[in-house]
């Protein structure tokens, strides 16, 4: 949990510059995933709830990609990734606890 010592002119400690190519690659990945989602949901309609689960799963993958590359988590201090994880854990706990109540009614 030690915080990074700032260097003397108070610039961000993380200097990584992502390349344009990396950003473009990220976009292509995201578009592909979107395509898969649409295909699964529109054409896999008979899978019913399963298609929702898949769609959400893919959405989660997309979110991770956006956060990791576009939002620079990959190159930032580990602290940020841990905090994002904390928020996700909390949200999942809220939904799971609420769901337990409704499913067992």
């Amino acid at each position: 949990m030690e915080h990074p010592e700032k260097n003397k002119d108070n610039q961000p400690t993380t200097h990584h510059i992502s390349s344009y190519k990396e950003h473009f690659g990220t976009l292509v990945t995201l578009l592909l995933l979107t395509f898969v989602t649409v295909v699964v949901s529109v054409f896999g309609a008979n899978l019913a709830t399963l298609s929702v689960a898949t769609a959400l799963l893919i959405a989660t993958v997309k979110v991770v990609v956006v956060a990791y590359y576009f939002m620079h988590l990959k190159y930032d201090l580990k602290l940020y990734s841990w905090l994002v994880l904390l928020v996700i854990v909390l949200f999942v706990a809220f939904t799971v606890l609420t769901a337990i109540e409704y499913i067992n009614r």
Partner: protein
Amino acid sequence: MYMTTLVANTNFFQGKKGLFSWIFSVDHKRIGLLYLYSLMTFFIVGVTLGLLMRYELLNPGKDLVEAKTYNQLFTLHGVIMIFLFIIPSIPAVFGNFFLPIMLGTDDVSFPRLNLLSWWIYILGAIMALSTLVYGDGPADTGWTFYAPYSVRTGTNVSMAVLAAFVLGFSSILTGLNFIVTIHRLRTPGMSFLKMPLFAWALYATSWIQVLATPIIGITLLMIAAERMLGVGLFDPSIGGDPILYQHLFWIYSHPAVYIMALPAFGIISEILPTFTQRTIFGYKAIAFSSLAIAFVGYFIWGHHMFTSGMSGTARFIFSMLTFLVAIPTAIKVFNWVATLYKGSINVQPPLLYALAFIFQFMIGGFTGLILGALATDIHLHDTHFVVGHFHYVMFGGTGFAFFGALHYWYPKIWGKMYNVKVANVAFTIFFIGFNMLYFPMLIVGLMGMPRRYYDYLPEFHLPNMISTYGSWVLATGLLLMLGNLISGFYTSKRKIGRNPWNGITLEWQTTSPPPLQNFDRMPVLPKNGPYDYENKPSIKE
């Protein structure tokens, strides 16, 4: 870029003068005091409403007001006390004033955001109080705004929930500012594990403020939307569910009770070492238990809904987790008591408040355990036992810690001193009045008197009467205490040095009151942790 160059011999009261230099100041100390003055104003309004309620409950039947007015009274009392007084109280006043000083820096990370959060707070307060004078009257729903009643009643619920929404933003901004400040601005050499425990407590609190408040924001917004658009979002006739509202409300509002409690724990952890002149017992245990409380506190909201018809599984889980949250609190209490062991104890008003805190918070906590157990909560839910419980933790706990802090840091903030003898007398009256007011509520709750009752059955009369008399004793004590503090401004002759209590944290190394830049010389950290009295740096005037 610029660095902070310090100016000697001017304290933060000097320098710019006039109202505007205060309400537009970005100095954390002035903002802290702005909060103090506004907060005390709302507190007086809130307690006055409380006194009126107690007067109404003196005898069965009507004593003072109509049923509807009574309902509006307790709603406004709850809203003011929760959102305007106790949630901001310690963080916004003492956190703002002392956190940067204790960390050895000159301000919070975002000074302007800090000022903004005070303005938002005032805006929210005006919105909340505006219902008194305009529209269809203050809400009459209880501070919980339970649907569907809150959607149906003709009183001005929309304004009240929007006010709470706005106040949430103020709370979030304070929390955000503190987290960043703690991460970025600790003085060199102060690692996380060398931070004062008050900073630790605020750190844990801030995480709750940031991560829980948005949920209630959106929920209250839904209530407002529902009323304005005339749709029944929580209405079963269109497929909604009133219980869902309760879940969302308590997902925030249970963690919120630790927003109220954790900073108070921090205060106690500061007062005890100072007045025992020894290091705190179990520093790490106290520091980490704050984080544990904050974390576990997120998962136990269901204990407010044990009688709402939740599934057995959910009741089982929520009840069990509720008991777990008592453990870190227990750890704190034991460590505090152990800190008294072999100290050199100087009994002064702040210490009295701290001891009363421990005693009353225990009563509050233990009644909390009784409520957390399923069988007993089925009987006690929504009775005056609950009212007794939360006044014990909120007023007997946080309220007492707040006043303890006020007595503790008074000489530092103003460079003056109140009359200690009068303070001790006021404390005694306050303490007796408090217990006389709230203990009977526990009894009458066990007897089965529901809360939010304008009128009650004759068998509940005696405890209610004692309770109302207690409220008058309490009021006497409070008035005496406030009077004593205020007259200290005018009558104090003694010039207060840097360190009247012989404290060890950094705020005692600077002048009283502190200069605008907080320090007139470089603060020195004790060698082994913040409470290392054996290697206490000597402080020259």
